[in-house]
């Protein structure tokens, strides 16, 4: 899934160093792989770099960038974009890499040439040494579209290599013809203006970006041209006429994929399909993994083997019943509870969830879901694009909070961040919730889901009414429905699961250290006593539940796991799960919200979630008819 948004200008200097000079191999070149989303870029990247690619987060963004060796050169895979500008984080990353690159491999979809040539012509106008890879010629041919690669090469002035990336057809040509990369024929109407800016000391690439009023480059160029819209219109006309000239059409019946893709957006088919997807997800994550896999990993592996082993091994180092033994090996021990929760309970769930997410992304289902649910989200002051952060939120709310940058306006980002912080349980938390509520029968799970959904809709509707300004409407490209490639799906899943561990582990360690120390100093008991009127009186929970909520300040899943350990009646379990779901966002999310929206607004959101959680939790525990 793409994560986009707008950011300030400050960070771009050091990015250059990272993407460019510092990584450029001695004697080799820095080659950027650039293309629209869903053109098969990552398959080509895998082919060109082999097994040893490194995926890392581009500094200051949520954008992942893969780099790998290609002979003597370094190949950088850029995020899929429709053009290079400063509309989103991904475009900025791509733009900055292109500015540094010695040459660019541009992948285009032969069946969507009209759309893809916009980016190609932008690269041509920038004067970047370029090779165009005309991919998916098989898919285009199946739809009756034949693209004349040589004619396209003639019109663009750069080499064009026809390929079918998934079968490997034509891919060896890319390395062979890399040396032929050259700057193509720019739009003649832009040349005088570009040259004028170059005379003022700008590089060709910067000159074009300035001409297009790029938010980060533009101001330095002064008021110098016809403006972005005119440049874009010139380029759009050239892209469309070029695509028209080189494409031959033979009438074909519409592919079943296209028909299915459209049906998925019609409520009568789309909604039952969505219900099916949710049911499958629930079966896989909530039942198979949350119950059977976790039973093995948590109970057998971690509690059965790991914990006794670590106690035996290290028990000798600390006198039994000493403070250190409590902190490291006790009930909340850094070396006992932390690895058990993290590896035994959360990791299997998070992996299962990310796997499903990656499949949904790679099939092209998510944008269709955005269309299907657009109207629902418009009622909450958002648009269909908000499904991206919301779906991601079921994986990890922190990651989803960063993904709110895909939303176009501050107003939408504010609403989405609050809804995420308040109502969306992350996969780790969902797991505990499912583990606790599913055995009680469908009534409890259903009541839980409905309660949280009502809060979601009420909070969104209220924010939409109360916040000033307007939200933007949906405008998205719909990628074709395709079968996902297992290799790409696995790679994505593993990268994200690794990211989860890297982020969650330190917080878990600090959290259990804090709880351990609170416990030792007696402060935990004091806090528990202080919270008793609320926890026992209002929420009807045993007073030890306060401890779980205190852990919940660090991470909600941590809190939920603490509640899991208590002996609760069905009614108590429902109330406890509603409360912990709506409870304050985890520390990592709080940091993200603070950075995105400022600390004052972050604090307001935090307090709001705290009170709403307690109020709704108290109501849930009193619901009649259960």
């Amino acid at each position, binding site marked *: 899934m793409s994560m986009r948004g707008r950011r300030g200008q400050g960070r771009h200097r050091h990015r250059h160093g990272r993407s460019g000079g510092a990584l450029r191999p001695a004697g080799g070149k820095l080659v950027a792989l650039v293309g629209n989303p869903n053109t098969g870029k990552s398959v080509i990247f895998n082919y060109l770099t082999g097994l040893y690619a490194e995926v890392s987060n581009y500094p200051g963004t949520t954008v992942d960038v893969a780099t790998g060796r290609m002979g003597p050169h370094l190949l950088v895979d850029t995020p899929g974009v*429709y*053009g290079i500008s400063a*509309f989103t984080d991904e475009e900025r990353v791509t733009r900055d890499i292109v500015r540094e690159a010695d040459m660019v491999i541009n992948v285009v979809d032969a*069946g*969507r040439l*009209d*759309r893809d040539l*916009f980016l190609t012509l932008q690269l041509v106008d920038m004067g970047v040494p370029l090779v165009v890879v005309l991919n998916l010629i098989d898919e*285009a041919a199946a*739809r009756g*579209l034949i693209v004349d690669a040589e004619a396209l090469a003639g019109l663009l002035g750069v080499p064009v290599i026809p390929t079918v990336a998934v079968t490997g057809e034509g891919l060896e040509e890319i390395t062979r013809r890399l040396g032929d990369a050259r700057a193509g024929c720019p739009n003649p109407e832009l040349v005088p203006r570009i040259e004028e800016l170059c005379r003022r000391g700008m590089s060709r690439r910067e000159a074009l970006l300035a001409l297009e009023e790029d938010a980060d480059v533009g101001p330095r160029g002064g008021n110098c041209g016809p403006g*972005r*819209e005119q440049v*874009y*219109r010139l*380029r*759009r006309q050239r*892209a*469309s006429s070029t695509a028209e000239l080189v494409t031959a059409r033979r*009438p074909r019946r*519409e592919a079943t994929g*296209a028909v299915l*893709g*459209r049906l998925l*957006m*019609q*409520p009568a088919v789309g909604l039952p399909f969505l219900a099916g997807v949710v049911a499958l997800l629930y079966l896989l994550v909530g039942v198979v993994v949350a119950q059977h896999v976790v039973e093995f990993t948590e109970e057998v592996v971690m509690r059965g083997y790991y914990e006794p082993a670590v106690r035996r091994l290290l028990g000798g180092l600390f006198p039994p019943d000493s403070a250190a033994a409590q902190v490291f090996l006790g009930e909340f021990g850094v070396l006992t509870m932390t690895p058990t929760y993290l590896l035994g309970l959360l990791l299997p769930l998070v992996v299962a969830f990310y796997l499903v997410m990656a499949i949904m992304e790679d099939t092209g289902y998510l*944008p269709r879901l*955005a*269309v*299907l649910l*657009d*109207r629902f989200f*418009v009622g909450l002051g958002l*648009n*269909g694009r908000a499904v991206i952060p919301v779906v991601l939120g079921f994986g990890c709310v922190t990651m989803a909070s960063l993904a709110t940058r895909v939303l176009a306006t501050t107003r939408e980002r504010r609403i989405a961040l609050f809804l995420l912080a308040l109502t969306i349980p992350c996969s780790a938390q969902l797991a505990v919730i499912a583990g606790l509520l599913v055995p009680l029968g469908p009534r409890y799970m259903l009541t839980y889901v409905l309660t949280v959904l009502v809060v979601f809709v009420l909070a969104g509707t209220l924010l939409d009414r109360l916040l000033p300004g307007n939200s933007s*409407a*949906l*405008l*998205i*490209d*719909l990628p*074709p429905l395709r079968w996902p490639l297992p290799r790409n799906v696995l790679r994505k899943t593993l990268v994200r699961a690794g990211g989860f561990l890297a982020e969650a582990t330190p917080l878990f360690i600090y959290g259990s250290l804090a709880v351990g120390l609170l416990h030792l100093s007696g402060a935990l008991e004091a806090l528990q006593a202080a919270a008793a009127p609320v926890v026992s009186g209002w929420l009807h929970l045993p007073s030890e539940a306060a401890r779980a909520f205190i852990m919940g300040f660090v991470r909600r899943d941590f809190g939920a796991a603490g509640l899991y350990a208590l002996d609760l009646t069905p009614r108590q379990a429902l109330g406890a799960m509603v409360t912990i779901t709506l409870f304050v966002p985890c520390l990592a999310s709080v940091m993200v919200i603070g950075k995105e929206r400022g600390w004052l607004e972050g604090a307001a959101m935090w307090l709001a979630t705290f009170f709403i959680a307690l109020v709704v939790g108290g109501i849930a525990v009193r619901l009649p008819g259960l």
Partner: protein
Amino acid sequence: MTLNQCRPGDRVVIRSIEDGEVRVQALRLGIDAGVEVCCRGVLPGGPVILGRGQHEIAVGNAIARRIRVRLLPATGGRA
């Protein structure tokens, strides 16, 4: 008429796009005044799905209401 009034199967030519920011985004996706598109679907009160050849774009209702289009006569053929 405006884009949100189209029905599935209609072929239309875009006459104007009101919002400047939308205009620039649409240009990149291949939509501009004078371009012929086919309406591939409309969700009641929701987005309109536009097609140009194999390429499909979803346009939210609030934007579609501000895009003026001219309906082309039906040809009976495939758009």
